[in-house]
């Protein structure tokens, strides 16, 4: 790349900076920036790095609890899970790269989030992935699904970290803009957590991992720019992931972390060397001086601009205690990784970059961080959709059930998770397919329950209530296995924030998350914003994905969704209200996306959940499933299919079967237990004022029987449920 002699308005625009922003840069610098400096500003001031549109809103999220060790602000959040153990986790998007090159985009997304977690000293123990694709019939969708899933598996499997769950949705709003959100959960000791503050002057700054190439230069800016049809024509350099090197990097970093040589460490993610060095200096209140001549380079004649902006993967930056370089180098050489001292910390508060004997950048660190733009963008809150839409009462319930369990958003995701190694590390005590995955804390009886949730169609109908629902569902899924929900990481995927209605979705989404997290004592300890998810001016459904983590005290007292015994009583916990608005029933059976999103009564949510959790903890119940997408009958069918045990249900005097069985009102669970337990539980429920009802029992026949509606063989249900995904993929297709 040749460097322009003069910075023209054209060049400024290409860097995604507005005129006003450029004027501010000149003011902060007291002069025209150099080309390298402009590049550095452009990535540091991008939406992706600076959160310029969302920062003022994110402040409203509750981030504290006695068990929170580290909230938002570091590479990942940290919670205390007792006995000196800490869980470290974070979720992040790789949406745009995955649309352009699904395999590598998704793979490097996985690699990036793992680095965020192990850079803090944690060994990753579980991965999740929340995926949204366009409508199945769209010519690109199948290819994207295959590529993304292969990419996630290709990277995660090699790393030896089990991928234990996630979400897959299809909706036309993602036709030109898929979402790939990956979450990583790791384990560390509370007294061995590493941070990124480069404190002190004169300490060596070391570069570790892979060599730097011209990968994904300006990736961070790309992630913040709206897509056009011709985005593919621009052919941005997509990064290629190298999971083998990442695995070595992981082991080498953990080995170095076992010493006390590290002052600060930070992965090189988006905007690579630039953001890692600037952020470390900023947090440490120090300065950093880099000499790019020492940066390990994969390609010849790389310019300073390219090196500072490269997004080559599998790299880390660390600040060591002086004199510990040789010890660190020995470890990295053993793992056959590059290691180089490329600079030192200073007390000047400046980021100084030298290349070939010349100073190519010299800028105040605070100009890149605190001085980065922060916008209070205008927003308008949309009036939520209202009403509980009418429906055709004559449709046969059992036929609708088969259709629903075989529909794209409700069918089994086995085709997906069987491509992910979910058993490696031999601690996955609850595999994909349940409400939350559970991974045992190695060598203990504790478990971490992990889930990701959001129902974007609710968020479209009502950005506020939908966001509340996402948190509530994550909390409920963790509760349903018997764990105590502890904290969340969010991934806010929205459209262009410069449009007031989109900014309104974001503001309402944050409010909804904040309210639910506060009410459920479920603080946000990290997150990620992905904005500008639009194609040709059409935004995606608002998609604030919530990744939740909870603690299971004893993995031997854990509930699963599968029916375990014949003759168990089946009990509904929570109030049936028959809410069909925005339900999958309405969409898949009636072909309409209408009505109000289900309201979330956070008090009832908490009360019901606490009640169910106690039953599991006390060993009264081992079979639980929350009721979400598809409603009660779908949940029941899932329990029957998972256990291959039939059920017979019926409710006396039911006026409207369809809304009862398919309504998606919140805060509800199905539990199954021996009849003697059921009596006791009913007693307790009455005392605690929990709305509940015994609706049937499990039976020997391998059928699902519904009074007055008929019955269906489990094999027929399973054929529909398990069939959709493989059939869809097997259809002949073009790119």
């Amino acid at each position: 790349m040749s460097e322009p002699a003069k910075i023209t308005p054209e060049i400024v625009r290409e860097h995604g900076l507005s005129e006003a922003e450029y004027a501010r840069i000149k003011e902060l610098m007291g002069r025209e920036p150099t080309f390298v400096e402009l590049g550095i500003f452009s990535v540091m001031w991008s939406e992706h790095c600076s959160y310029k549109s969302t920062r003022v809103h994110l402040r409203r999220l509750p981030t504290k609890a006695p068990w929170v060790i580290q909230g938002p602000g570091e590479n990942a959040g940290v919670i205390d899970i007792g006995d000196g153990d800490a869980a470290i986790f974070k979720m992040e998007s790789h949406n745009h790269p995955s649309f352009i090159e699904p395999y590598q985009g998704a793979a490097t997304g996985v690699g990036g989030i793992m680095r965020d977690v192990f850079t803090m000293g944690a060994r990753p123990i579980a991965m999740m992935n929340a995926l949204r694709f366009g409508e199945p019939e769209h010519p690109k969708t199948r290819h994207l699904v295959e590529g993304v899933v292969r990419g996630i598996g290709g990277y995660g499997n090699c790393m030896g970290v089990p991928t234990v769950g996630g979400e897959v949705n299809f909706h036309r709003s993602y036709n030109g803009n898929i979402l790939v959100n990956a979450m990583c959960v790791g384990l560390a000791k509370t007294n061995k957590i590493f941070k990124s503050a480069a404190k002190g002057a004169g300490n060596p700054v070391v570069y570790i991992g892979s060599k730097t190439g011209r990968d994904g230069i300006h990736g961070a800016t790309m992630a913040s720019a709206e897509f056009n049809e011709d985005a593919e024509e621009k052919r941005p350099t997509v990064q290629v992931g190298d999971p083998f090197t990442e695995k070595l990097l992981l082991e080498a970093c953990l080995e170095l972390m076992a010493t006390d040589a590290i002052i600060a460490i930070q992965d090189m993610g988006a905007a690579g060397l630039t953001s890692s060095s600037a952020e470390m200096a900023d947090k440490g209140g120090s300065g950093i001086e880099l000499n790019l001549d020492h940066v390990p380079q994969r390609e010849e004649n790389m310019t300073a601009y390219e090196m500072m902006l490269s997004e080559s993967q599998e790299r880390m930056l660390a600040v060591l205690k002086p004199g510990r370089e040789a010890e660190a180098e020995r470890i990295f050489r053993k793992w056959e990784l590059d290691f180089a001292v490329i600079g030192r910390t200073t007390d000047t508060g400046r980021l100084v970059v030298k290349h070939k004997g010349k100073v190519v950048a010299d800028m105040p660190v605070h100009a890149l961080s605190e001085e980065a733009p922060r916008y209070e963008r205008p927003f308008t809150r949309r009036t939520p959709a209202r009403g509980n839409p009418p429906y055709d009462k004559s449709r046969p319930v059992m036929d609708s059930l088969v259709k629903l369990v075989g529909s794209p958003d409700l069918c089994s995701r086995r085709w997906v998770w069987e491509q992910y190694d979910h058993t490696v590390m031999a601690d996955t005590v609850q595999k994909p397919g349940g409400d939350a995955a559970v991974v045992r804390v190695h060598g203990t009886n504790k478990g971490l329950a992990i889930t990701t949730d959001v129902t974007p169609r609710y968020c479209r109908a009502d950005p506020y209530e939908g966001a509340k629902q996402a948190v509530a569902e994550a909390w409920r899924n963790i509760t349903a296995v018997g764990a105590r929900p502890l904290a969340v990481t969010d991934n806010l995927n929205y459209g262009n924030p410069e449009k007031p209605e989109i900014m309104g979705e974001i503001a309402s989404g944050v409010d909804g998350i904040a309210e639910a997290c506060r009410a459920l004592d479920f603080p946000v300890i990290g997150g990620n914003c992905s904005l500008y998810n639009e194609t040709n001016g059409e935004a995606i459904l608002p998609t604030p994905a919530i990744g939740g983590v909870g603690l299971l005290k004893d993995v031997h007292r854990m509930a699963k969704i599968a029916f375990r015994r014949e003759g168990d009583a089946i009990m509904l916990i929570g109030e049936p209200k028959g809410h069909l608005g925005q339900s999958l029933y309405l969409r898949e059976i009636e072909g309409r996306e209408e009505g109000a999103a289900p309201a979330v009564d956070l008090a009832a949510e908490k009360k019901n959940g606490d009640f169910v959790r106690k039953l599991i903890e006390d060993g009264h119940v081992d079979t639980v499933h929350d009721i979400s997408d598809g409603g009660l009958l779908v949940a029941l069918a899932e329990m029957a299919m998972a256990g291959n045990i039939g059920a017979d249900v019926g409710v006396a005097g039911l006026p409207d079967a369809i809304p009862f069985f398919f309504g998606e009102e919140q805060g509800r669970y199905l539990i199954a237990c021996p009849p003697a337990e059921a009596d006791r539980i009913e007693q307790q429920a009455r005392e605690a004022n929990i709305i509940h009802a015994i609706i049937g029992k499990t039976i020997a026949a391998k059928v699902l029987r519904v009074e007055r509606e008929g019955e269906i063989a489990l094999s027929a249900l399973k054929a529909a449920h398990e069939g959709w995904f493989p059939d869809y993929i097997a259809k002949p297709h073009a790119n």
Partner: protein
Amino acid sequence: MKARVFVTLKNGVLDPQGKAIGHALNGLGFGQVGEVRQGKVIDIELNERDEAKARASVKDMCEKLLANTIIEKYEIELKG
């Protein structure tokens, strides 16, 4: 007619496989080995006599399926 298609990573795109192979060859004592790049070769039997037509349709196959032109490039060889 037979077509042989080479699909390789574009220059500058990281090739982790090639890197690892090069490293392994050095480790096996092949000191003279420099950079190594790995790609795919796809041999296609074509029911087509006309060379120009064959080339055009193989090119089309590359663009549509065989190569991901965002990171890969391709070469086509025709024989017989």
